[in-house]
């Protein structure tokens, strides 16, 4: 099924509606929500059916709940100043979770995840109050019109106001119980979100990429802000992002250092390519001798009702009659590209489009020197090796995506996942009538810095019209050897899914509540949910802070969970993605063994033998343990030959060897 606007349109003109029929099924034929559960049903441990997330009782604090392969450890309502006001994003440092709220931010001590303790509630209103930390600094986004420089609660009613804050607030949290408000950096469009870049080559500064999507402020309010497009005024605040440099020794000197126009020259929506099923269909047609043309960068099969008259005219042109010969077919094949070009022409060339006017969110992954930008109608790949001057190196668009929201890389950087916040997060986009391709995640592989579309993932449980629901914020869960992500879907709850196979993502755990209000849509649900040092923390818009832990199941083993919990990070801003590394542990080796059992990558006998040897090595100590591990690693290396999961076998051998050598 073609999925890109340009190619669908061209194909439609050429081939008629039949080629593209399934793209338009949304309104007329409701997409049944259970599509994805059908996939899950083939898994060793099927999700409960019917899906218990459907039909949950409504309520603010007593809503019905459904949970699968997760355990809710605690739900902590906001402090009084923050009740009834939107909870937003999360950042983490040490034992603390910092939770943004449109009224400011709250700091929770989560050392005991069953009983988080409020450390500070800092009243300082501004939407969205997205938060990030770096060492002793806390950064908070302000975008809404009601944010004030003095943190006052009265709003800033004047259209042009000297009191208004739209941009980044910077706090010193050296004493986290008493944050000190250091300074602000005002920006022309405010800060909807931001991303902190800790450049591996620059220990003296951090950089903040500011994304703002609201209208530009008047120049009378903030000097130099220009709302006119760049072709009318080169100083336009549109079509650019803002980069703030924060000198760590003097954070009060933080200032904008550049406003890169990373969107320039995005003339046409680049193709994200086709899904594997589409490619297979084309290849089958090609093998069967079909005529295939390139339309807008994607191959299309020409139907015989079009090619038959073309072939007949070739036969006539050479003065022949009867059935076209192989030579006629070859001649048509050779002539087709020129015929297509003549018939459809190229794109309009009277001046490039300026591209999207802003990004919603940028995920920085400094360890691989790349960032994923979710910007208007595009997913961008940026080279960030020069922090103040990011350079666009790739772009994708998708006719099923309305508004690119954010990006997540796989830990090894070989994949990137973009989310589509269709409707902005305030709309119910997970009803049974909403297509599974809309308001979803799109998964791409990343080879030689090229993005290739593989599949969509969307919360598989239908939600009510009273629940705002769409793809939103999440993070990787460091299960070794797999790409697993936990993601918030607002009132759709949270969903844990495996996207190791980028063409077939599948849900492996979830939690959901009924609507906040039985009669109407009230904002609620998981704004963001992130893994942090062994627990899963969710910022619930209306209900507070939820903390979960993973529960072992056939889809996630106890060893995999233990290995995930062995990963420790000092702090987390999900928009500055950390690279996970796993310490050498028995759990790590056993996690790989469990995965080889699941994938049939080793015979049952070998699985049993490896497990037995790991157990006896663990019960030994010192030199005896080391020898046992080394003895085990050698044959395991050899098992890779002939295994259907050879890479995983080698990871197992490596983990065992690391365990042995790390013990000296």
């Amino acid at each position: 099924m073609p999925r890109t606007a340009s190619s669908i349109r061209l194909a439609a003109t050429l081939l008629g509606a039949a080629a593209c029929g399934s793209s338009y099924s949304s309104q007329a034929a409701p997409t049944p929500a259970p599509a994805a559960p059908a996939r899950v049903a083939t898994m060793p441990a099927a999700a409960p059916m019917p899906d218990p997330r459907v039909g949950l009782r409504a309520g603010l604090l007593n809503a019905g709940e459904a949970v699968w392969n997760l355990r809710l450890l605690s739900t902590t309502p906001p402090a009084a100043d923050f009740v009834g006001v939107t909870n937003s994003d999360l950042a983490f440092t040490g034992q603390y979770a910092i939770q943004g709220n449109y009224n400011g931010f709250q700091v929770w001590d989560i050392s005991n995840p069953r009983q988080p303790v409020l450390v500070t509630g800092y009243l300082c209103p501004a939407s969205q109050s997205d938060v990030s930390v770096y060492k002793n600094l806390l950064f908070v986004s302000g975008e809404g019109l009601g944010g004030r420089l003095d943190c006052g609660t009265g709003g800033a009613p004047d259209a042009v106001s000297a009191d208004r804050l739209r941009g980044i607030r910077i706090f010193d949290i050296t004493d986290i119980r008493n944050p000190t408000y250091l300074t602000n950096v005002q920006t022309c469009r405010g800060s909807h979100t931001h991303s902190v870049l800790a450049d591996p080559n620059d220990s003296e500064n951090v950089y903040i990429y500011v994304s703002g999507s609201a209208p530009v402020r008047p120049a009378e309010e903030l000097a130099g802000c220009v709302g006119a497009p760049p072709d009318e005024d080169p100083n336009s605040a549109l079509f650019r992002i803002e980069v703030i440099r924060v000198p760590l020794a003097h954070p009060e000197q933080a200032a904008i250092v550049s406003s890169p126009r990373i969107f320039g020259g995005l003339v046409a929506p680049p193709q994200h390519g086709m899904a594997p099923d589409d490619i297979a269909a084309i290849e089958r047609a090609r093998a069967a001798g079909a005529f295939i043309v390139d339309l807008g960068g994607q191959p299309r099969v020409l139907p015989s009702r079009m090619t038959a008259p073309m072939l007949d005219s070739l036969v006539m042109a050479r003065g022949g009659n009867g059935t076209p010969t192989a030579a006629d077919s070859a001649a048509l094949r050779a002539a087709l590209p020129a015929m297509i070009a003549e018939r459809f022409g190229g794109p309009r060339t009277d001046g490039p489009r300026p591209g999207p006017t802003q990004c919603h969110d940028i995920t920085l992954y400094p360890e691989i020197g790349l960032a994923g930008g979710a910007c208007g109608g595009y997913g961008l790949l940026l080279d960030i090796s020069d922090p103040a001057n990011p350079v666009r190196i790739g772009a994708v668009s998708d006719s099923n995506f309305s508004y690119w929201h954010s990006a997540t890389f796989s830990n090894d950087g070989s994949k990137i996942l973009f989310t589509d916040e269709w409707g902005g997060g305030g709309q119910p986009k997970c009803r049974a009538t909403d297509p599974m391709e809309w308001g979803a995640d799109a998964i791409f592989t990343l080879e030689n810095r090229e993005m290739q579309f593989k599949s969509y993932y969307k919360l598989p449980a239908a939600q009510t019209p009273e629940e705002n629901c769409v793809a939103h914020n999440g993070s990787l869960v460091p299960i070794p050897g797999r790409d697993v992500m936990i993601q918030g879907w607002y009132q759709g709850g949270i969903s844990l899914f495996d996207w190791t196979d980028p063409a077939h993502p599948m849900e492996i755990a979830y939690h959901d509540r009924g609507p906040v209000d039985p009669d109407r849509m009230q904002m609620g649900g998981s704004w963001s949910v992130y893994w942090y040092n062994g627990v899963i923390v969710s910022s619930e818009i209306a209900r507070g802070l939820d903390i979960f832990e993973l529960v072992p199941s056939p889809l996630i083993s106890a060893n995999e969970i233990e290995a995930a919990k062995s990963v420790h990070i000092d702090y987390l801003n999900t928009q500055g993605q950390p690279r996970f590394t796993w310490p050498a542990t028995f759990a790590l080796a056993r996690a790989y063994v469990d995965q080889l059992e699941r994938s049939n990558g080793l015979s049952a006998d070998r699985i049993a033998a490896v497990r037995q040897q790991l157990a006896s090595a663990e019960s030994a100590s010192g030199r005896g343990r080391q020898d046992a591990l080394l003895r085990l690693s050698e044959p395991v290396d050899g098992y890779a030959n002939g295994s259907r999961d050879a890479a995983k076998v080698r990871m197992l051998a490596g983990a065992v060897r690391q365990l042995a050598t790390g013990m000296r």
Partner: protein
Amino acid sequence: MGWQRLALSITLITAACGGGAGSAVDTTPAPAPAANAEIEALYRARTDSARMRFTEADVAFMTGMIAHHAQALVMADLAPTHGASPPMRVLCARILNAQRDEITTMQGWLRDRGQPVPEVRIEGLNLMMHGVAEHHMHMPGMLTQAQLEELDAASGTDFDRLFLTYMIQHHRGAVTMVHELFGSDGAAQDELAFKLASDIQVDQLTEIARMELMLDEMAPNARGR
């Protein structure tokens, strides 16, 4: 497919999903009921008082935008019967879905604030609004009756081209309305109003860019209008 039918299907889904707690597993260590009641009361009080923070400009924006969105429904409803291409039908399906939901949100916003709630009726090209003053029916970018009739008379590729041209004009009008709102003293201080206006602005700018590219990719000289 018509407005009435979709509205009906949503009602049915509501009914199907509304009842009972299902097979939910409740693992919450429930806070003491008294504490819960206190938080609920505070939640209601605060969300209620937040609804009191609005101006005439916010009300005018919501009312006018409902009419504006309603005309987009009239236009997008034409696609299936006017030989629109599949990508155009996808675009129209998205516009119908998005703008219906936003109309519901804006109606709810007005209802919560005790303001007159415009009701929308569409019969073919005729848009009937109940509870809307005449001037709210003529918002920036809205098509004239003659333009609507011109669109209704087109089919196939001509429809596609005209639809894109007019919907770009229509969306630009919505963006203008957001800018006017933000330029009004006291406006969009309310969190919901700011979010809704901001989301409409960014969604429609993104869609304008997409529609411009769709126009670009049509046969050369497509953008003659």
